[in-house]
């Protein structure tokens, strides 16, 4: 995985998973090919935003061109995405290309908006394929059925005993955010859980 450094003032992002990822097909891959695809999303800018001022929230939303989502949901696309984390708390995620923190801080009063840069502290794994929900089911008691957890839903839960944020990007596509320090452990457990279905690491 190539490292990119585009924002002037930030430190070079290092993948927390690069040294454990083996590319290729593994597990019970049938003639139909793997039913799961796993990859790391990297490098990402990940900011936690806390504010209880609804006017400020609307202004930031206009600046970012993404609406702030309601409880248990997400808004946006791969270019910029906002996830609901809890009351008055959101996660803003985008592929790193500018210093988003500076962009927001320049526009808004810092006593009203609290931004925490989690880019270095999180690892993001994308899990997709027809058995993705089966893998999630092995790791957490959340109701992962499509009727309860469809596209643009998110959940903060204990996944394989680790604190994780799961964002349903599409029916069978999930972005999983975990603490970087546990990413290696998480990766090992995830590929173990995926092995019975056959998976491909991209």
């Amino acid at each position, binding site marked *: 995985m190539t490292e990119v450094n585009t924002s002037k003032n930030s430190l070079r992002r290092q993948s927390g998973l690069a040294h454990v990822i083996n590319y290729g097909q593994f597990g019970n891959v049938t003639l139909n090919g793997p039913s799961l695809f796993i990859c790391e999303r990297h490098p990402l800018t990940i900011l936690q935003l806390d504010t209880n001022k609804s006017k400020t929230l609307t202004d930031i939303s206009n600046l970012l061109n993404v609406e702030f989502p309601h*409880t*248990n949901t997400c808004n946006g696309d791969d270019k910029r995405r906002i996830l609901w*984390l*809890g*009351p008055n708390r959101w996660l803003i995620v985008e592929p790193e290309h500018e210093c988003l923190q500076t962009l927001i801080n320049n526009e808004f009063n810092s006593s009203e908006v609290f931004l925490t840069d989690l880019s270095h502290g999180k690892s993001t794994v994308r899990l997709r394929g027809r058995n993705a929900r089966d893998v999630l089911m092995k790791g*957490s*008691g*959340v*109701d992962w059925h499509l009727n*309860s957890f469809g596209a643009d839903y998110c*959940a*903060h*839960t*204990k996944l394989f005993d680790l*604190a994780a944020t799961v964002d349903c990007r599409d029916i069978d596509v999930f972005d999983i955010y975990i603490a970087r320090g546990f990413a290696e452990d998480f990766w090992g457990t995830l590929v173990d859980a995926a092995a019975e279905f056959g998976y491909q690491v991209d």
Partner: protein
Amino acid sequence: MLIINCPLCGPRDHAEFTYVGDATKNRPKNGDSSNDNAWYDFVYLRDNPKGLHEELWQHSFGCRCFVKVLRNTLTHEIIATGMPKDNLILKEKGLELNV
């Protein structure tokens, strides 16, 4: 496995929650030494009821909110959940707090 219905996140495994304690205890209004008995009661004294108990849990692996839970300490049945300000006993009419 106990399922606790977080008022924000929905039904979740109890392992995502941290037990906080008795939700029936109210913090004394002032810190005067004349209020020592009330503080002693608030900080240290806990009943050990057999039956319904209102308690606080924190959804620490989820939204991080405090959740009030009405639980039967004998059967572990969770009868109702709500926000900390909710009075679950009143909500569940006909149930008597067994303390």
